């Protein structure tokens, strides 16, 4: 066929084209990055996208900094901290730090920022990041006190990442709208241009404080562009217009790696996939109410097979509703092997020897969903599959409209079980089981500051969730990165690319 011929020529031309790529990146000290979505705002407190988190680490600093390799909390804008009591934290602040616009960093900035974002009228998001402290006090030019509402063990986790410090004079003057157009922070990169939703330009901040655990940035300029279409991102990479892309699909990544013209790396993320069931009958009386049916489904899904064939990379099957590195997470819970015969047996016991039909909802990874549907069909379960956009999916689920769905959760890269298990199983809008025991244990874990108490409580909760299959954990996700061979970049398992640690080769 004429088209087939044309396409053979195309692939040959493509191969020829790739080898002649001129890397503009290194020659003008600019790293060109592509992301796939529009950011609603660059202001750290007014966006919820992962890309927003990436930019936030570049432009702003928090009081502490979690080392991605050791998960230790290192001093950044604060030189030290102290738990005065279980709900009060005191910080000594670093002197000699300046914002990109010349303002000096001191206690006023900390107090203003924390007061502003914790005020619900200001609508900072996500709310769970900023709603756990009561007030801030300035104890001196470089000393502040933070009063929590109640025990909150994840406090340090938040203060070492998402809770960044804004310049009080500037922010008071321009507010979130101004900050979104002209961001100012203390971070290793300063923003030089913002075209909202389209393109963001960054320049290394040479006045960055030298004692920062983030280190000094090596690459002089970074340009982040939104390119929604994945093939266009690849074309830009091949033609040299873009130097770095991520979230590359596994099949694409494997072939790019095979061609050998670009560096391809894979890294795990904190995101896990899960199946959610209407255990309590919140949606209706349906087969999912019966624990035997849920256990049957747990045995019916070939998670290992799907991970090996589709998810690939550094992903693995998970057995509890959390990511293994998260504090409180344990794989020592009831497990389910892939056993379609057992599944059919359990279904028969529950009275569904001939199977049944049920609506099934998902918003991403359609092919994984289809593979799971295939598994379900094999044991007699038919699905009415509905594939929605995320917003519609979330609304329908939270409205009680879905007895069976496939979702994922990235925990906003917060390395703590409270960021995922408690979100789904503490009686909230996504909770379709509202089990008293689980809610109680999670409550204990969420509010204690004793690590042993927390671990035990979370283990109890996770065991019960897996035992009763209120939700069925599937696998962890991974991200593929592809970038120019002139770039030395190492991904981190928290899925937050740090361009300030990247270098030219």
């Amino acid at each position: 066929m004429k088209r087939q011929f044309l396409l053979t020529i195309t692939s040959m031309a493509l191969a020829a084209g790739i080898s002649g790529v001129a890397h503009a990146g290194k020659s003008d000290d600019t790293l060109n990055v592509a992301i796939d979505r529009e950011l609603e705002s660059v202001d750290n407190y007014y966006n919820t996208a992962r890309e927003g988190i990436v930019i936030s680490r570049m432009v702003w600093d928090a009081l502490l900094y979690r080392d991605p390799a050791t998960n230790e909390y290192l001093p950044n804008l604060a030189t030290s901290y102290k738990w005065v009591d279980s709900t009060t934290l005191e910080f000594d602040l670093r002197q000699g730090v300046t914002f990109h616009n010349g303002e000096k960093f001191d206690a006023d900035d900390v107090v203003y920022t924390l007061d502003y974002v914790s005020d619900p009228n200001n609508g900072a998001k996500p709310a769970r990041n900023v709603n756990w402290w009561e007030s801030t006090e300035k104890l001196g030019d470089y000393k502040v006190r933070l009063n929590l509402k109640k025990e909150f063990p994840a406090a340090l986790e938040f203060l070492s990442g998402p809770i960044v410090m804004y310049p009080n004079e500037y922010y008071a003057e321009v507010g979130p709208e101004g900050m979104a157009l002209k961001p100012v922070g203390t971070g290793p990169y300063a923003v030089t241009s913002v075209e909202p939703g389209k393109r963001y330009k960054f320049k290394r901040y040479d006045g960055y404080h030298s004692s920062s655990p983030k280190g000094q940035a090596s690459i002089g300029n970074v340009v982040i562009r939104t390119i929604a279409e994945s093939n266009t991102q690849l074309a830009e990479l091949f033609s040299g217009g873009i130097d770095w892309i991520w979230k590359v699909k596994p099949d694409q990544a494997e072939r790019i790696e095979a061609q050998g013209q670009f560096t391809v790396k894979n890294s795990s993320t904190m995101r896990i996939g899960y199946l959610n069931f209407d255990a309590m009958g919140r949606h209706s009386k349906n087969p999912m109410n019966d624990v035997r049916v849920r256990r049957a489904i747990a045995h019916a899904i070939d998670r290992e097979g799907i991970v090996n064939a589709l998810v690939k990379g550094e992903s693995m099957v998970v057995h509890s509703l959390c990511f293994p590195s998260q504090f409180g997470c344990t794989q020592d819970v009831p497990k389910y092997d892939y056993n379609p015969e057992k599944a059919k047996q359990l279904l028969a016991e529950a009275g569904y020897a001939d199977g049944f039909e049920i609506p099934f909802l998902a918003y991403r990874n359609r092919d994984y969903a289809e593979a799971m549907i295939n598994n379900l069909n094999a044991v007699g379960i038919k699905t009415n599959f509905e594939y929605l956009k995320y917003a519609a999916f979330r609304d329908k689920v939270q409205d009680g409209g879905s007895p069976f769905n496939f979702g994922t959760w990235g925990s906003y890269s917060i390395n703590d079980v409270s960021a995922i298990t408690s979100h789904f199983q503490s009686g909230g809008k996504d909770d379709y089981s509202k089990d008293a025991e689980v809610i109680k244990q999670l409550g204990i874990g969420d509010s204690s500051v004793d690590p042993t108490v927390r671990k035990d409580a979370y283990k109890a909760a996770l065991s019960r969730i897996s035992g009763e299959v209120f939700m069925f954990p599937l696998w962890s996700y991974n991200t593929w990165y592809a970038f120019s061979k002139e770039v030395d970049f190492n991904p981190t398992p928290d899925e937050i690319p740090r361009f300030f640690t990247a270098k030219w080769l």
Partner: protein
Amino acid sequence: MIYYTIKRLGLALLVALTVSFISFGLLYLSSDPAIAMAGETASDADIEAIRKLYGFDRPILVQYFDWLQRAMGGDLGKSYYFRTDVSALIGERLPTTMTLGVCAITFAIVLSVPLGVAAAIRPNSLVDRVALFLSVMGQALPSFWFALMLIVFLSVNLRLLPTSGSDTWLHFVMPTVVLGYYAAPAIMRLTRTGMLEVLSTDYIRTARAKGLRPWVVLFKHALRNAIIPVVSLAAVQFGFMLGGSIVVETIFALHGAGFLAWESITRNDLPTVQGLILVFSLFYIVLTFFADLLNAWLDPRIRIN
């Protein structure tokens, strides 16, 4: 002529209102505005509060007229996603789409009209067959495939053009071709048909018999009459382009109003979608309105009808 103009204008406005109302209704039926506005982390209480505060519990007609009233004063509300004024947002993105649309329709006309004329002069010849084949090809080729193939050949391989973005006029070349080729077949066929009809009429034969040069006959007499339905069609196609630009803008990272429309729909950003529909349908209606006027000026018989 004046009466004709006023009549068409009134009709155009009525159409705009109807389209905007139907779209409004469809949007509200497909997603709950209170949830869309409240966002992910809002509690049930928050959502109910928003529902009361913004009057989302009122009958649809009331809500629509409320919105319409504000829209007529230029206030299209605030985007749920960007939290900025919808009018500012659209104002920022629309020029890209308009530029693309104008270039594309120009390209389509420049490509199709001469081709249609050539095909009409020699019916059933090679030119004619090629033209017809191209026109079918134009309608059966998926635009995203065409766009990406152009990128691979012209940008990745030959380095003649930039891949994506909207910085320079070079960035608009491929998007123009991709968007324009979709409208080209219809324009080509219509031109060809019109010319065929006109060329066989008496007055053309008379003109030829009078000894007028072929070019003069062709352009001054034949084309002027054949072009009438093409003008309307071009306007209609331009209107379609505003919708078809979604794919082109997505692939070429053009960040115009088409891309905004699609993203806003998937993000449940109702005010932006409503604003865009209003703007698009107004444009479309203005276009067809002017096309009608142009036709009426070209052919007085239409005015009398």
